[in-house]
């Protein structure tokens, strides 16, 4: 949760549309892991889309990351992370948001626009435009997992006697 009151009156709480929240979180996770160039190319590939204006210009700040004692116990403040956020309104009134680790304000703004577009009729086109990015991320994760798996330890129990 945020520490203080929202600093912009225009940002209204959105009734989070439950079942699509998981899909939107997946979209946001993909964009958080992307490069600015990839998101910029995805947005450009959509062609004609509603124009976006800033509700809140992209800005960098901090989020205090919390852990839990023992992994599942009492929460504690582990340390902060730089986070960049952006909020846009599309010409038809839809809003889009982005919160990403790091300090790339261009990337956050493009991600916020794509988030706004994804919530309307452009969703299939946004999904299609990000398909290549999703594939790249999935392939990178797969390669990493396969390399880690090759370092799995197989223990042999040494048995004495029995010729």
């Amino acid at each position, binding site marked *: 949760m945020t520490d203080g009151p929202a600093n912009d009156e225009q940002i*209204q709480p959105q009734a989070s549309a439950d079942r699509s929240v998981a899909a939107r979180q997946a979209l*946001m996770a993909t964009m958080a892991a992307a490069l600015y160039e990839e998101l910029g190319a995805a947005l450009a590939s959509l062609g004609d889309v509603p124009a976006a204006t800033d509700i809140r210009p992209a800005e960098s700040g901090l989020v205090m990351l919390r852990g839990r004692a023992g*992994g*599942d116990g009492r929460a*504690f403040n582990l340390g*902060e992370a730089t986070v960049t956020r952006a909020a846009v309104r599309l010409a038809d009134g839809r809003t889009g948001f982005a919160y990403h680790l790091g300090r790339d304000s261009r990337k956050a703004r493009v991600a916020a626009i794509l988030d706004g577009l994804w919530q309307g009729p452009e969703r299939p086109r946004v999904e299609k435009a990000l398909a290549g990015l999703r594939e790249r991320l999935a392939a990178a994760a797969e390669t*990493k997992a396969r390399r880690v798996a090759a370092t799995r330890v197989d223990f042999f129990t040494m048995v004495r006697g029995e010729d």
Partner: protein
Amino acid sequence: MYVAVKGGEAAIDNAHALLAHERRGPADVPEIAPDQIEHQLSLAVDRVMAEGSLYDPALAALAIKQARGDLIEAIFLVRAFRTTLPRFGHSEPLDTARMAIERRISATYKDLPGGQVLGPTFDYTHRLIDFMLAAGVTPPEPAEAEPECGAVPRVTDLLDGEQLIEAETPRDGEPVGDLTRAPLDFPADRDLRLQALARGDEGFLLALGYSTQRGYGRTHPFVGEIRFGEVMAEFVPEELGFAVPLGPVALTECQMVNQFHGNAEQPPQFTRGYGLVFGQSERKAMSMSLVDRALRTREFGEDVVAPAQDEEFVLSHCDNVQATGFVEHLKLPHYVDFQAELGLVRQMRAEHEAARETLREAAE
């Protein structure tokens, strides 16, 4: 008499220009780029993030370049940078059970659900200098194998199932202390202690952890589990009302299993020490978990007999930015203070001489 001292501006400017020149080094050696530091000196970057208490690999790499590789100076730079940014809020607690495992070992169970994977480790290397690295050899492609799908439960959860180890309780209704917002007060609760240890100096915590092993507050520790990998950080913005994934954060976690505690109601159980650190740093995570357990001495009704168990001592001295600030301030001008000391020692010597003179006269 107070004497204001001015001067040295030109010397300071020139010293900083000379520093920049020395930082660059010989012009015929290619300049190092922050992304080379970020990806090729990544464990130094991890240390700066952990003790700088700010997760931002690119920023930490730049700080290391600026600090000429002086990691405490880089940590100082990162700490200063964070004061320039507003805080949006705090994350949901990171769920290390959902870590994308890159390394996971246990010293307590040979076979455990999820298995043991070594990942990229210095363990079992011979610690011989590899002159091939100086020659710039491209390493071979890493081997690959089919990943095992399935959960990788924490080792402590396995013990917890039999109640052989003390259970942790989330206590989510309670406020979480933050030593960056309010000064540390003693006694400090475990949330504040863990925050201080997470950003504490690796060398200091290593030495304290070592001291507990050598008998200064022995806790009979076993590494239940160490895991390293990425965990998705999540934040709930007010305007959205659901957890937004911010991106993956690399973490090292150490679950230290220590000898028993019990009382009239509670049969003996293993006790826990916990370490969680940004990036890949097993030494830090292990040291943190040893010191965390040592600092729980009072909780278990044991006597505080060793430095590692003394929370005021540990928490007041584990921050290397504070420590370096106070130690290094000694080199700044103390001319007036020293004049006073000079006057004092001269007066004491005169009195000493006068007293001896009186004694000599009395003896004659």
